[in-house]
């Protein structure tokens, strides 16, 4: 039978009746469409980025591009299933809404302007140093006693529940070295 992939998908999507009309076995059709889609693709697994169930996703890559994403059947929690949000995540790496370069918005400006990573990181690093130096609290009095506190209260860090553990760990390490206590994330919201 000479059917295009689109015809096959239509048949599958159009419910069992259509398939029966075409004389197709549902299982075979499903297997065949999957095969077309991911033939020759590389595979990897990731963990979903929404709630905390920790469902595994099976991802397929061709020519460096994510071409398919589905529930990982070998996972102990989701056993191949994904919810509506998880199942839609194949859109993310390919979305034209992704920001692709660092951007800068000057004080009072109405627009973003692209800048290089070096410019962006140099600005951030310099600002952290200046803010830390200008707002350093070496000691603090409590009653009659003077305490060494080595701190700045003018710099804050926020975020982490969307990040991986290694990123959270380095963020904690960096912010605590800088000496701020305003280190927070989504656990409170």
């Amino acid at each position: 039978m000479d059917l295009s992939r689109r015809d096959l998908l239509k048949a599958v999507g159009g419910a069992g009746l259509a398939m029966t009309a075409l004389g197709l076995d549902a299982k075979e059709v499903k297997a065949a469409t999957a095969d077309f889609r991911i033939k020759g693709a590389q595979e990897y697994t990731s963990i979903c980025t929404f709630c905390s169930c920790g469902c595994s996703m099976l991802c397929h890559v061709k020519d460096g591009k994510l071409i398919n994403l589905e529930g990982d059947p070998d996972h102990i929690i989701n056993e191949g299933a994904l919810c509506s949000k998880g199942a839609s995540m194949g859109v993310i790496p390919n979305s034209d809404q992704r920001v692709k370069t660092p951007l800068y918005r000057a004080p009072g400006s109405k627009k973003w302007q692209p800048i290089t990573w070096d410019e962006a990181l140099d600005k951030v690093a310099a600002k952290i140093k200046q803010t830390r130096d200008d707002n350093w609290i070496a000691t603090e009095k409590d009653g009659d006693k003077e305490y060494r506190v080595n701190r700045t209260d003018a710099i804050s860090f926020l975020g982490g529940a969307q990040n991986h553990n290694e990123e959270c760990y380095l963020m904690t390490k960096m912010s605590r070295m800088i000496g701020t206590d305003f280190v927070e994330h989504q656990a409170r919201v």
Partner: protein
Amino acid sequence: MTNHYVDLKNAKAFLIEGSNCAENHPMSLRWIMKAKEKGAVIIHVDPRFTRTSKLADIYACIRPGTDIAFLGGMINYILEHHLYDETYVKQNTNCYFLLKPEFKFEEGVFSGYQEGKFKYDNSSWGYQLDPQTKKPLKAKSLDDPNCVFAQLKKFYSRYTLQTASEITGIPVDTIKLIADTLVKNRPGTIMYALGITQHTTGVQNIRSFGILQQLLGNMGKAGTGVNALRGEPNVQGSTDFALLFNYLPGYLSYPNHDQQTLKDWTKSSGTFRAKFLVNLLKAWFGPNATPENDFGYGWIAKKNKGKNYSIFRIFETAVEGKMKMLYVMGQNPMVTSPNLNLVHKGLSNLEMLVVADPFMTETAAFWEKPGCDPKTINTEVIFLPAASFLEKQGTKSNSGRLVQWCYTKINPPGEAKTDLEMVDLLFNRIRKLYAGSALEKDQVFKKVVWNYPKENMYETVLQEINGYNLKTGEHLKGIGEIQPDGSTSTGNWVYAGCYANAKNLTKRRDNKTDPSGLGMFPGFAWSWPGNMKVLYNRASCDEKGQPLDKERPLIWWDQAQKKWVGFDTPDVPVATDGPDTPNGQKPFRMSGEGVSRLIAAPYKDFDPKNMDLPRDSSSTPADGPMPEHYEPVESPTANKLHPKVASNPCLKYPRLKADQPIGKHSEFPYVLTTSGIAEHWCCGAFTRNVPWLNEISPETYVEIPEQLATKFRIRNGSKVKVWSARGEVVVPAMVTKRLRPLKINGEEVFIIWMPYSWGFKGLSQAASTNLITIDAGDPNTWIQETKACLVNLARA
């Protein structure tokens, strides 16, 4: 979670309260339904009839912010009718411990309340102690009026079914039915989410769960527990790694200004935890951390003990002009934080804002908010394009503490980078800027060990987290190998063992081997601590160490091997210390007492060999050792139990008077509660950029009960203005039967509901619900009361 997702299949009863898991944790349903197929009973308690309610056998409509009264009613009923598991309670809790005779609860406050300071002196809440050993004195019987159990009974006696019903709006019979159902169907589990935490009594809501489960003997066993369905993919991990002002990684208390030395810190936190702090300092400062220099403890900033550094204070101190700079990594407070007008004011007052995210967010573009003039906003903003989860490696920890490795085979789009690389590049730059400084304050940049290779950076960092035996250079195989003398290091002690024998155990994928049949799969990824699946599993055994539930055994004492063994990692202090030793009778070893705490008295435990410093210290909530019902800050009714102390007496609100007005019931007659939906998630930065999801759920809305809609002549789709003392939104209406009026203290109370995932960026744009929500917070966690505030509404 004390247990884990697959374990849900082992429960015979589910109390799901403050969670719409069918929509917001869909895969938990997979395991709940497996239990239901075997006859388990599902109870759902929520202000709105949701998709979860539809699957439930019993549904109870509760007024937002009254969970303590509902649970209190059940606890009292169980105590009064002797429906508790007495053997379990006696073996596993502090029920016999004697409290000080001066402990009291009168007219809405516990003893020691400091009027005007919004806090307690909790010294009267402690135990009577043996003067020599400093161990708690125990009563001979549970009838001793000063023992924990008798005090618990006395405290809860006010929570009759009738009182609970009048406060919550749940009929007396339904409360009784739920209690009887939980008593009759054990093992039973409790599942909750933000519907429980986002209150000014959030911690005490969860304490109520703890008390209920202890009384029912529902802890430490398969199919039991108090199970938080956490709201973000790695919020368990980000909490474990202490992106929270008051902790260091592994839940070590963050040092206060009056804890100038490691010894000062140990006086408060105990030697058990000091060992882990030493190991963290070794991970951070390497060879520069020595016993002589207190392992570099002095280089770490000391927070002011009396100050609050929570997320709310970031924006408030910005409004006050004290906060100059904010770096945001994958969070979008301009949608998800309450009282957004204050957040916007804070962001507008910063000198610099840095946002790293895969998508443009409302936070990064706050100066583009409709109706505001960018010319008047002088904040410098830098946006750093971040890799999405699919474009990077590393581990995530789910709610069940399962730590799993993520792979990738694609690059981030354009010039986007991973957050790990960004932090590394940024910190190396900061270090370089300080390289020439001889100032003492800058020495920390020279002392810190920070040297991560570009290749395999995630795996290198994970190894630092796991930790090393510094003498042999080998990875630590578990918490048991951690030494107090600086000869080992670990970046987070609860993760020690995740990378053992040079193997990354978070990559394991054995989904076949489950000898217990209970869904433990010990060879699949790795759970903290020590690959333990069910916390407190010692409580699944009797005094002699034999399983109580013969159908679902977890661990047991093997007399032949002289060892605790079983299907799970035994949760005991020392695996070879049997039931006839003190260590063999510590089912809740992570509390100072070694047992669970029906009343959370302040307590420091001493080792007889070292009476100088405590071994461990138990924490006590700021707002009381037992959960008391307080009304939300904005409440439609008086506090039935003590009208003079309406809301939480430890609550300081407003903090900024001009920006935090409190709405009166006379002006704002309706209760608003908010939550997520199946198709959009949190701030929506991801989901509102997915066309499919926008097609299914295109815009925000307000759900209004039919009776209220009739009164205002509101129809499905009508534009409705909803406003509070803080802000207003105009959104379409969804008229529904899912909400219904409740009878509260004899009066009719209407509740309306809104999702909160929208903002002015992304492919689907709409008003943010958080413009109207309140930012009053729980005095322990500073989680805001987004589940209950007062609003008014009108046709727009």
